[in-house]
């Protein structure tokens, strides 16, 4: 086995990117795995954060503030999206009495 490209003591850009990827993967698995729509929304927040992490890592690596500005905007938009998403969830599931994603198949052929 070759030498690890990711060193333990020296934290480079790759570390942060890998962390981002792992978080993204966990978020994706979370969306797949659970039927509860709220868990799905939380997993989506996880994915957004992974993206943010990547942005910030690159911003730091390139010494460019724009990455951070963009991450800030992403947080704002994520907040808006969470609010709307939860409102939709509340509205839809008020009458259905369960929070089951499997029941939302009206767009089926």
């Amino acid at each position, binding site marked *: 086995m070759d030498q690890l490209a990711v060193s333990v003591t020296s934290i480079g850009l790759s570390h942060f990117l890998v962390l981002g990827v792992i978080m993204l993967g966990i978020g994706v698995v979370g*969306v797949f795995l659970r039927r509860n729509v709220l868990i799905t929304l939380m997993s989506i927040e996880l994915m957004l954060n992974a993206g943010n992490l990547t942005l910030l890592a690159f911003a730091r690596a390139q010494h460019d503030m724009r990455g951070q500005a963009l991450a800030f905007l992403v947080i704002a938009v994520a907040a808006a999206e969470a609010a709307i998403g939860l409102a939709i969830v509340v509205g839809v599931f008020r009458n259905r009495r369960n929070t089951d*994603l*499997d029941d*939302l*198949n*009206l767009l089926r*052929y």
Partner: protein
Amino acid sequence: MSVTESFPLYLIVLLPFLGAALNLLFGRRMSNGLVSLIACGSVAGAALVATKAVWILAHDLGVKGALTDQLFKGDWITAGDLHIAAGLALDRLSAIMVLVVTWIALLIHIYATGYMEHEADYSRFFGYLNLFTGSMLILILGDSFPVTFVGWEGVGLCSYLLIGFWYSEDKNATAGRKAFIVNRIGDFGFLLGMCLLYTAIGTLKYSELSSHLMQLRMPLWQGWPTAYWVALLIFVGCAGKSAQIPLYVWLPDAMAGPTPVSALIHAATMVTAGVYVVARTHVIFDITPSAAQMTVAGIGAVTALMAATIGIVQKDFKRVLAYSTVSQLGFMFVGVGTGAYVAGIFHLMTHAFFKAGLFLGAGSVMHAMGGEGDITKMGGLGKHMPITRWTFFVYCLAIAGIVPFAGFFSKDAILAGAFASHFEMAPTASAFQQHMIEWYPKLLWGILALAALCTAFYMWRLYFTVFTGRFRGTPEQEHHLHESPSEMTIPLIVLAAGALLAGLIGVPEIMVHGLPESVEHVLTFFNSWLVPSVLPASPEPHEHAVEWGLMAAATLISLGGIGLAAALYRGGISRTAESAKEKLKPVYNLLFNKYYVDEFYDLIIVRPLRVLAKVLWKAADAVVVDGGLTKVGPAIVGFVAGLTRRIQSGDVQRYLVAVVVGTAGILFVSTYWLPYAGVQGEVAKQGRKVTLDLSRGRVPDGRLVYQIDWDGDGKYEIVNTRFTKGHVHEYQNPGTYKIVVEARDPQWGVVKHSNDFFGARVPMTVTVE
């Protein structure tokens, strides 16, 4: 040669079309008065221009002179060697036709403003009528076959449109269709004749026909010269247009159209187009007189007799006149068929006058009778409609051929020409045939004489039944009887004058011997106008006695017919007539049912076509086209859609699975697959020489950079090559070697070794002796 001069002839054609365009496009919004003004005005304009043109032709140009014009500059059709210009020409023959057509058309337009007064589709009628006039003028003025053909088709179309004018009634639409289809058969013959002519002489202009007689005399088929076949084919077209056997069946049915249409199209103009074309192209017919002309004359004569006999027993006013038209056209064709072209054209002209008048009179009567056309329901109309009655009287005298009315001179000219014509058989023909050919002219004359007898009879039967005696219709109709308005009676009067006087310009030579020079000049004007410049002289009996004898015979025949009609029908349908009808019932039925010709055609032509159409519809169309072609497509689409539809499950999580799978796929293909695929290779061994081929992986050449290690020692012998083929290595020592290939994608920087975990599927080892 002929002198030609340019003249704006296009106006003659353009004005009626302009009127048609205005009336058809905007007529709905215009008042009746404006519509009729445009319609009559455009025809009047054309008539005036035509008169001016003929005036110039007569005075400034010589005997063979012609006025020429082109509808638009440059060639109309160019195809290979064929160049046809849309040319118009006015020579002495077309001068006569143009004058007849434009002035009679004008009279009928004026008549129609009164007749069609209460018609809802007023503007459409006049639009079509103008369209017809324009097309007829193109036909007459065309200087080559194609231009004439344009007019030919145009009048056919307008005939269809006008016959079926009241198309909401099935009968009318059917009649229009019948006319068009039967005409079409004739047109096909005309077209074939044109094509044959072109292949023979390479030109289609009338003026160039006489310079190509040599080619036309060449035998074509069965020993007959080209000219014969061309003439025959063109005659097929003329038979269709001018209602001769076997294509006359449309004309009686065409009476379903409004009466002005019958007057204009089926009496005075369109049906005469056939006669005109034969006269126009007489040089072709003259080349084989005994063949082409015999055919034409023979068919004309038989048609004349047949139609006349049918006309004796018809009960519908217009139908009698229709059969009369067919019969008179037969006369004209005998005229042009026996070489008496002048006679044929003369009869055309006089016939236009009195036949148009007869139809307009019929319209007047039907107008008074509230649309009723059955003569057995009429009677005694004379006292209610004097103008109509006395003009009708004049027309009947004219058509019966009583001196000095027009019909006498023209019919006499035809009869004399028929009697005196001369045909010859080829010397190789049998004696019987030679004998027959001598009697042929006399036979023609006999048939025509019989037809003339019938003509006089049925026309006067018509007159007496309708205008004398007691009224046989319903009381309401009797109350309604009145003379027609002046728009309708004035044309009647004008035409009656024409029927009276028109004959007086074609008086035969022998009748004007002793008269002063100028009078003689006027009286024989027609003949001298056309002969010998445009048409050859008509055959004439050699002895004067024969000629006088023929004239006397003709007059006797006519008087006999009138007398018979008077005896049977004067003062109403007499009992003698009724009992004769009963006694000769089978003959009566045969004649009344038009010799069952329509039924015959239905049986052998129409029904098989219908069956064929049905088969094609049900089998070919429904099964093959609908089932096969139009259903196959949707079936395939449906099938595929059914399969792919299931991707859309409505389940969001599944969609995300799809997204992730897609992402993985993209990642794989863009960064991994290329080098991976590029490492697949094939090894070919030849002794100690080994060839490596890396192109199996469907990676295009030059995409990847390869490094090849031939003996597995870790050092790459071939470095940084983009070639996939042609790597050859000769091993020095025998043994088993492992070939290691490294493929690098320069774009993504991804590297693959062939002995990686995910490397080449087939380890590349080679054993060399």
